[in-house]
């Protein structure tokens, strides 16, 4: 290690707080029952509390003391662990993305954590984490790592490509690193994309000079920067229709509150039950006919209030999640950051983008707005990063031109759609399912279940819309796939990013010369799928993707 560094000293404090937080339930119980615990008031009790605090301090101090990291010429080395010592080496050229995050606790103290992701490893777990850094230093370090990665890749591109495992190979200082980037990605199951166009044209002298001055921050002015305005953000949140998160949040709060109430006021529910019958008697009296009408009204009112609350909550959650959204590009690196409470920030290479995704929920589609995402390979396979939370659809081409100049998007409204005869294929399964539900409901609730029949027209209309939204288009080496579940989603995929292409037909589809297309792209668990497109439109796609008989 040439120049080892510690984390921020506040790491000790954060560890201290985290240790306390781990025992919060125990502490709360002790405080509630403080009356009964005579022992704590004796001299021994106070001594024990102090001893515990000191122990906690030592346990917080040691992890800080033993955590060292240093930026070498071609790699980052981390030493950590109190009893079990660990040394972790990450070569700059293997770094996939560097993220700076600010959870609430760190944000309070103006700190941040820096996560480094490499291909491979456990999904969802970053390869390395510098858990507490000053926020400004974390950002500097993020830039620096990004830069070191670029230079080390450029260096490597000049070197002879050798197919060998790089990570385990000891390296002599000053000698260019070995192995082809695609080779590593292949081996780790993350990327087969060999394209690593970096600044190859930089001279070698400049390279060595730059990488030796790793201590200095490199500040670059981005080529493009976009920051969402408050008005835009508000509009985005109003149209987000993101109820599910809010509902889960509400349920979580509810069950948590339930537990707490149970603990603090064990008799609360019994008391409430005592109160309600008398209330009920007063309001409704004993007129039994009013009973059902009033209850239905009450239930409807409560539902409306809850839904309104959920909607409001969803807006607030959206604002918190995407507040302070900004994206910038410098050369081939895109960096995105957002979040009011938990600040998230991602840096990724433009060439690592596997697909561009445009997502329009029904409300936004009607208003002509959309959310833009990209499929990027990170340690989390499901990762789709939002590159624009709320964009007017006609502005997309110009914005894409700024964000990814070599990737113009072709926004067509008219794609090769499934023919009307394919409606049967779209409607069949959902309708059968609804019929089964209706049958079950009729069996359970007899005539009352007739209401369930209303689901049938809803399903028929919904599947009709799904069919009308679907489509494929192929132009300029880019495949466009569009489909709807509830939101209308459009995928833009390049040939080189498609891992496998599949076509399926059921007997019913064969009769009508239709097929379902499956496009598997790296970084996505499920293939992008569009159902029941006519053969004549799919055959050109098959030929386009097939490599036999034509060289690229």
């Amino acid at each position, binding site marked *: 290690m040439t120049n080892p560094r510690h984390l921020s000293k506040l790491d000790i404090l954060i560890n201290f707080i985290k240790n306390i937080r781990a025992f919060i339930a125990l502490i709360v119980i002790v405080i509630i029952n403080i009356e009964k615990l005579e022992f704590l008031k004796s001299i021994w009790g106070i001594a024990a509390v102090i001893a515990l605090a000191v122990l906690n301090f030592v346990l917080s101090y040691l992890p800080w003391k033993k955590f060292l990291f240093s930026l070498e010429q071609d790699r980052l080395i981390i030493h950590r662990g109190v009893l079990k010592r660990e040394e972790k080496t990450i070569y700059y050229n293997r770094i996939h993305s560097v993220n700076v995050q600010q959870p609430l606790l760190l944000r309070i103290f103006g700190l941040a954590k820096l996560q480094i992701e490499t291909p491979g490893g456990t999904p969802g777990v970053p390869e390395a984490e510098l858990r507490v850094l000053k926020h400004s230093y974390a950002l500097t370090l993020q830039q620096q790592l990004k830069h070191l990665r670029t230079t080390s890749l450029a260096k490597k591109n000049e070197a002879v*490509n050798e197919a060998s495992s790089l990570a385990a190979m000891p390296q002599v200082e000053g000698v260019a690193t070995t192995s082809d980037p*695609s*080779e590593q*990605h*292949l*081996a780790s*199951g*993350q*990327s*087969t994309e*060999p394209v690593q166009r970096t600044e190859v044209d930089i001279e070698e002298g400049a390279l060595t000079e730059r990488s030796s001055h790793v201590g200095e921050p490199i500040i670059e002015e981005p080529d493009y920067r976009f920051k969402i305005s408050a008005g835009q953000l508000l509009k985005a949140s109003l149209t987000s229709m993101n109820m599910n998160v809010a509902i889960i949040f509400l349920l979580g709060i509810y069950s948590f509150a339930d537990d707490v109430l149970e603990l603090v006021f064990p008799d609360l529910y019994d008391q409430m039950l005592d109160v309600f019958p008398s209330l009920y008697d007063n309001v409704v009296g004993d007129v039994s006919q009013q009973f059902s009408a009033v209850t239905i009204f009450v239930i409807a009112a409560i539902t409306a209030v809850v839904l309104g609350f959920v909607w409001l909550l969803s807006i607030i959650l959206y604002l918190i999640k995407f507040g302070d959204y900004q994206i910038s590009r410098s050369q081939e690196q895109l960096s995105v950051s957002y979040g009011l409470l938990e600040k998230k920030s991602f840096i990724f290479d433009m060439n690592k983008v596997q697909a561009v995704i445009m997502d329009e929920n029904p409300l936004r589609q009607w208003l002509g707005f959309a959310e833009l995402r990209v499929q990027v390979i990170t340690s989390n396979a499901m990762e789709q990063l939002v590159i624009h939370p709320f964009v007017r659809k006609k502005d997309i081409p110009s914005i894409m031109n700024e964000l990814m100049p070599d990737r113009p998007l072709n926004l067509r409204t008219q794609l090769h759609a499934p023919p009307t005869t394919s409606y049967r294929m779209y409607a069949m399964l959902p309708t059968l399912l609804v019929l089964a539900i209706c049958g079950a409901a009729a069996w359970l609730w007899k005539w009352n279940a007739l209401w369930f029949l209303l689901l049938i027209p809803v399903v028929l209309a919904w599947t009709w819309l799904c069919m009308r939204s679907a489509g494929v288009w192929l132009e300029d080496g880019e495949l466009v796939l569009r489909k709807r579940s509830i939101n209308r989603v459009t995928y833009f995929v390049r040939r080189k990013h498609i*891992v*496998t*292409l*599949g*076509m*399926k*037909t*059921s*007997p019913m589809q*064969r009769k009508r010369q239709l097929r379902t297309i499956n496009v*598997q*792209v*790296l*970084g*996505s668990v499920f293939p992008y799928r569009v159902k029941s497109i006519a053969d004549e439109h799919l*055959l050109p796609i*098959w030929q386009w*993707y*097939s*490599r*036999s008989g034509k060289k*690229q």
Partner: protein
Amino acid sequence: MQRELSQKLHPDYIKASKVSSIISHVVTLLLVSGWLGFALWKDWTLIPVWIAYGIVLLSFIVFTWIVPIYEYRSFKFDVFEEELEIYSGILFHSNKLVPMVRVQHVEVGSGPIMRKYELASLSVVTAATKHEIKGLHKEDAEALKQRIGELAKVDEQHD
């Protein structure tokens, strides 16, 4: 999709998959019979047990005499210089195209029944998907593994 695919599975695949279907159904039959005995002992209703017997019988017929034959007949594949094409499916036909550039590694494996008939299955693994060609002759599978391995490697350098 438009061209004829020349390669098929080994005919012994039908026998092997019949044997494995018989074994798995015998095991299920024993389990259901155990359930029957238990139900008689505890005086439970026997209707679900008879339904289970019916299902086992039906699945025995379908997966022992019908599926293996049609599976063998429908499964076709071909290895081209730059890609692998697989066609499969009895009712739902599926065509798949896997470029050699995307192939990460190839695996050959075989279970005890497959080994008895000198068969092996070949798995072609890409970064995101896995494609299995089950029921090739052991030597063919080995040769194919070598071939795909070479093709995948050759392509990797100039793409």
